[in-house]
């Protein structure tokens, strides 16, 4: 497992890095509006009813580039990698170096499954 991880490390690190950078940049507005302001009623949830939400999500640039779906895909997938990788390093810091192969492997498996689910959902819009 450890050897496999070692081979994939550059890719993992790339996804993780984008998770921090792009993930954070995209998540902030999402969490703010959908997770906080609308549930609290500060912004009317009606502004994001199904029709509008679907329209936004499938909006495209010049009719060819599916911008909405691309943004959503990044928003769904990248944070998972940031999360998995950071949990792994947190565990290592608290003495989990020995089991790093297995634990890391499991965490990335979660990220992979999540990524698959996220992309399927986005494609299915």
């Amino acid at each position, binding site marked *: 497992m450890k050897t496999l991880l070692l081979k994939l490390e550059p890719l993992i690190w790339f996804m993780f890095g984008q998770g921090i950078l792009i993930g954070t*940049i995209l998540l902030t507005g999402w969490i703010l509006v959908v997770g906080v302001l609308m549930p609290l009623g500060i912004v009317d949830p009606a502004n994001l009813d199904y029709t509008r939400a679907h329209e*936004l999500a499938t909006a495209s640039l010049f009719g060819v580039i599916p911008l909405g779906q691309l943004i959503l895909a990044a928003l769904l997938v990248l944070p*998972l990698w940031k999360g998995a990788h950071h949990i792994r390093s947190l565990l290592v810091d608290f003495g989990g170096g020995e089991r790093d192969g297995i634990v890391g492997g499991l965490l990335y498996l979660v990220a992979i499954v999540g990524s698959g689910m996220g992309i399927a959902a986005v494609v299915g819009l």
Partner: protein
Amino acid sequence: MAGPAHPHSMAPPKPGRTRAAPPQMPASWWNTSRMRTYLLFDATGIIYLLVGFVAIRMIRALAEGAGAWQAAMQSLENPIYIGFHLLSLISVIFVAVRFFRLFPKAQPPSIGPLKPPPGPVIHAALYAVWIGVTVVMSLALAGVIF
């Protein structure tokens, strides 16, 4: 004061010529302000993973249709969800601030023929993009634009 580190940490390639005491690290290594900041930064990983899955759930609902979407939106009004999202909001802001601070130094002096701008410029650009995207995204989601 000291507790054990990994027994092979910084071990020589072949056994030393005399018995050595295993490596130690300060028992409270995590208990300095810098270390706590760093560990918190790592710990936001848990939040990111969860936020990611919540978002996936929302988009799956959106793909399923109006009813599912409606229900999903309503479920977010649960105080536990609201609390979680407030925590997430703090997390992303914290991640942004620490990461943007460190990001410029992780830039190689050149990437092929390209030269990244000086540190302060990168720093400012990161903030500008972050805030810009957040504002546009928020206004779009809130129905003010688009």
